[in-house]
């Protein structure tokens, strides 16, 4: 305690007295400089706690951007400004040759194929793959169980009611309708590949084999929704099957 008092008396007090004798403009300059020094800190704090729409500050370039092009990049080489070249009409890319009409089109002897192509093996893993893919690409509209009650459908119906921006909507089909149940696998495959009426084609989003997997899963799904309860252990205690859901 004594020491601290001594330091204050002998050192700080005279310094403070001196300080008040410093010309006013210097004292003001000190205040301004100190305040200014907090500005970078404030800017940094803000930058770390907010999002920013302006281009990044990129001071040291290294070899970060090289004169090469990467996927989906722009390019000054081509008139249309894109580096990924669209297919040239009349050409077939490697692997795109649809020689096997059964596998690529679901057509066998000029009719919808009724069996799966020999290039795929329909087993549990295949059907599970189909389930996975169905849940990604089909559930938004057809719903997880295929009754045509997906979230997009539900939202679209409310948009139709309010007439937002000219929305019109054809309900996705209930995949458990007898007409669709009777369709051969080749026709289902074709629906996914090329679309049908208002439903878009999914060939560009889903590889061929996965499309067959989805078909296998749809068949399993249809079977499961119309299965003989006797086939399942303890089925007597199950709740009744849901036959509502989805519009016709």
């Amino acid at each position: 305690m004594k020491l601290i008092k001594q330091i204050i008396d002998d050192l700080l007090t005279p310094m403070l007295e001196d300080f008040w004798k410093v010309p006013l403009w210097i004292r003001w300059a000190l205040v301004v400089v100190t305040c200014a020094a907090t500005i970078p800190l404030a800017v940094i704090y803000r930058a770390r706690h907010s999002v920013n729409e302006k281009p990044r500050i990129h001071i040291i370039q290294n070899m970060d951007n090289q004169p090469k092009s990467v996927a989906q990049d722009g390019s000054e080489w081509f008139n249309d400004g894109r580096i990924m070249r669209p297919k040239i009409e009349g050409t077939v890319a490697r692997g795109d040759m649809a020689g096997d009409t059964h596998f690529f089109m679901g057509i066998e002897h000029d009719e919808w194929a009724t069996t799966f192509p020999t290039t795929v093996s329909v087993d549990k893993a295949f059907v599970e793959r189909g389930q996975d893919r169905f849940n990604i690409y089909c559930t938004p509209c057809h719903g997880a169980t295929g009754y045509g009650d997906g979230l997009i459908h539900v939202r679209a119906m409310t948009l139709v009611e309010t007439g937002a921006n000219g929305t019109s909507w054809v309900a996705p089909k209930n995949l458990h309708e007898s007409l669709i149940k009777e369709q051969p696998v080749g026709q289902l495959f074709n629906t996914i590949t090329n679309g049908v009426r208002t439903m878009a084609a999914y060939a560009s989003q889903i590889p061929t084999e996965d499309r067959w997997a989805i078909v296998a899963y749809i068949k399993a799904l249809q079977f499961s929704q119309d299965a003989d309860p006797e086939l399942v252990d303890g089925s007597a205690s199950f709740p009744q099957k849901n036959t509502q859901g989805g519009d016709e």
Partner: protein
Amino acid sequence: MSQQRFTFPQWTNLALPAMAIVGATAPLYVAIVVAYGFSPDTLDVGHMPEQPIPFSHKLHAGELGIDCRYCHNTVEYTQHAAIPPTETCMNCHAQIHPQSEKLEPLFESYETGMPIEWVRVHDLPQYAYFNHSAHVNRGVSCVECHGRVDTMEVVYQHETLSMGWCLSCHRNPEPHVRDPKLITQLEWGIDMSEEDRKIEGEHWLDVNHLNPSQDCSTCHR
């Protein structure tokens, strides 16, 4: 000796202690500004460029529950996670909001066949090699590297994407891997305790025989 000599006023005695204080704090100050100001946390995280269409992940991936792979469909097969082509949007928007002003560039693109010019958000230096399929198929979810995209109105960069960040996971992957089936379930695991998450991660590291490499040639090839 008649000339009056200039004498420093008494207050200049303060110069010495003042210099001591400035000398001590200035380097510290500069160090802080450089360390924080130039870190990718400040410069890169939160980068959110304006897009030609006000596309909302919060709406599409969050509320409407569309799986990431419906649009970014190459993410499991290739290095690059493709930004969806116009046709993918038109699967729905041919019928939904066909007269929306916000979607004007989409319909223009559909008619002319010219792509929409989306602005890149994430951008690694081109000397670094990154591969989506290597991560996604081994159970590293989008959320580990992109944050909760399904709650973002506009996507922004959530992580630094610096080498230190890549390595922090390659060195300690336990809390970051999961069942490869759940990679697009961004909300999975947020209610887990740290230990449970780690045990789960260890399980999947084991099942899929994962051992993320720290060799320079993994990422600089």
